[in-house]
């Protein structure tokens, strides 16, 4: 009743092929964008914007990248954290070498650097499959992380070994560095994430996305149907690492402000994998759900005992966070193995047939 597409006739091919063919979807999307661009800046405080929304958007972007690889192409990767690192270090290097160029250009360019590295490490995927590939991508994770520590050129031989973000402006307004306001940074991140999500959505709904899904479902069958595996798999690696690279650059430049090699360690890769799986494999909206759940959950667990008036030590709280996170992962896998995106689909079906049960 609330979500009924009856009576919405499509009179052209363009309308039929649209990403959002249903009017309610378009309205819903417009509402979400309105909330993100206007609502949250109005009601959200500094903490809300700087520590909840920006990380959420950055992580969601990386999760979209990983989802393209795992959910759409069926190639398991455990090296996303390192590819984010490649983006971050490339952006740092490029922006310190050529400080006069607009930082947005370098953020996109660092995605391209990460893309090239991703293709290089994606090459084994042509011969290695499944969990063997997953472990092979760990080679990328450890090798790149070693580079971040040992290759001094990457961090300009900074004695602390960390990279620090200098001040950059866009239209005269500081967007990176210490003086940038959270709200400005939020708008920059939000715009990039929206544009890149729109791009990914077009990609996965088009011919390339269909190729990927065919490869995911059975690569030999896809090959027999005339899909060339080499370009399809490498393109998936390229796009995925591009997203990861941009997310990494955003993470350091617009969220953290400085980073050490440890920020891109294997735990980061695992956390992103959680987001993709819990959000839903092969679903863009799932990436956002997953990022929201995994990022916000620890914040809630940390603040909940205080809110309830219980006082537990910070160490105990940390251990409890581990147990609760692990338990929730198990819970979600058992209750809804297809992820939160599936819950959203079920909800839409319920809205469609309401008030009848089916």
């Amino acid at each position, binding site marked *: 009743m609330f979500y009924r597409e009856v009576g919405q006739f499509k009179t052209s091919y363009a309308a039929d092929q649209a990403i959002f063919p249903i009017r309610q979807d378009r309205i819903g999307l417009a509402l979400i964008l309105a909330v993100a661009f206007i609502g949250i800046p109005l009601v959200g405080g500094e903490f809300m914007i700087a520590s909840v929304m920006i990380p959420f958007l950055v992580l969601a972007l990386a999760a979209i990248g990983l989802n393209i690889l795992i959910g759409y192409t069926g190639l398991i990767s455990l090296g996303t954290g390192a590819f984010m690192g490649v983006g971050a270090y490339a952006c740092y290097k490029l922006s310190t070498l050529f400080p006069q160029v607009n930082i947005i250009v370098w953020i996109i360019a660092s995605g391209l650097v990460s893309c090239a590295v991703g293709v290089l490490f994606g090459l084994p995927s042509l011969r290695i499959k499944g*969990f*063997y590939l997953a472990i*092979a991508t760990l*080679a990328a994770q450890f090798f790149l992380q070693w580079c971040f520590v040992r290759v001094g050129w990457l961090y300009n031989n900074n004695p602390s070994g960390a990279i620090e973000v200098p001040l950059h402006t866009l239209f005269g307004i500081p967007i990176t560095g210490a003086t940038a306001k959270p709200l400005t940074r939020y708008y920059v991140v939000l715009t990039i994430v929206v544009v890149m999500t729109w791009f990914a959505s077009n990609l996965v709904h088009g011919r390339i996305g269909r190729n990927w899904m065919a490869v995911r479902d059975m690569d030999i069958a896809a090959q027999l149907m005339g899909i060339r595996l080499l370009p399809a798999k490498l393109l998936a690696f390229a796009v995925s690492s591009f997203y990861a690279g941009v997310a990494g650059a955003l993470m350091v430049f617009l969220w953290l402000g400085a980073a050490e090699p440890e920020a891109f360690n294997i735990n980061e890769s695992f956390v992103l994998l959680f987001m993709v*799986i819990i959000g839903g494999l092969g679903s863009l909206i799932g990436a956002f759900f997953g990022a929201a759940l995994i990022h916000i959950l620890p914040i809630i667990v940390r603040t909940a005992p205080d809110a309830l008036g219980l006082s537990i030590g910070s160490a105990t709280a940390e251990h409890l966070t*581990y147990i609760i996170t692990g338990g*929730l*992962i*198990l819970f979600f896998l*058992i209750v809804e193995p297809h992820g939160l995106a599936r819950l959203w689909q079920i909800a839409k079906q319920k809205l469609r047939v309401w008030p009848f049960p089916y």
Partner: protein
Amino acid sequence: MHLLYQIFIDPFMQMGQAPDLLVQTLWEGLVGGVLYALIALGFVLIFKASGVFNFAQGIMMVFAALTLVGLYEKGVPAPLALLLAIGVMYLLALGVERVVLRPLVNQPDIMLFMATFGLTYILIGAGQLVFGGDPKEMPVAALGLPKGAIDLKILGGLVSLQKIDIAAAIIASIMVAGLAVFFQKTRIGRALRAVADDHQAALSVGISLNQIWVIVWFTAGIVALATGIMWGARSDVSFALQVISLKALPVLILGGFTSVPGAIVGGLIIGIGEKLGEFYWGPLVGGGIESWLAYAIALAFLLFKPEGLFGEKIIERI
């Protein structure tokens, strides 16, 4: 030219000039390899019988060792603590089967993989909550393990062999032999192999999947406990040890997920290759290459044998 010399000639010259150092390096690599092989063995056991890629194996190792040490520190005599730790691993196997495996049966592999991640988090949290996060010392003497080193005078130099390493190698061999006999000769072992071949066929001849899973996870738990004791004796018992389980993953892909001999051979190749590479070639690039060299070695092998050295041949049908 100089670079080529440094890569291809100089390390071998060094080996020739100081054979005692080479033997020492080989020995350390061998021992490391045996211990990697033990962790990989736990992975292989579970993967064979339930098709689960058990990421939690590393943390099971730490958890088992921590239970043992934690109980010992609370005043429980060492042998009793050992028994209790085995009991805890049994309870863990029961719990995992009941809570994780049974509801998730027949789900795609990656779901079960993620479930073991969840398990890892729970075990990390629970272990730290109960026993505390600071490193603990393994009661080597109380467990009846030897301490100290034997110095051998060979090849014009001294080679020092830690007794605990020798004990580790012996225990590992006994365990592998025992597992081989268990798999080949006993009734339960045959049932395990039947389950590994085909879950449904095994069910249809009256083998209880649930029971077999408990047994397999319990066996993997015991392997984890033994590994944990060995690693714990070499360094302290702490959660930093779980990093070692990441080192066991290249061993696993090198040897093949389903092969017990593969785990052993893979472990030795990785262990020795890693130590030689770090010692002779590491200084060229600034050291610290141990973190990824194992993966590079495994990857090089995989490009020629995508299912690992001893893995089952992958046959794909449309």
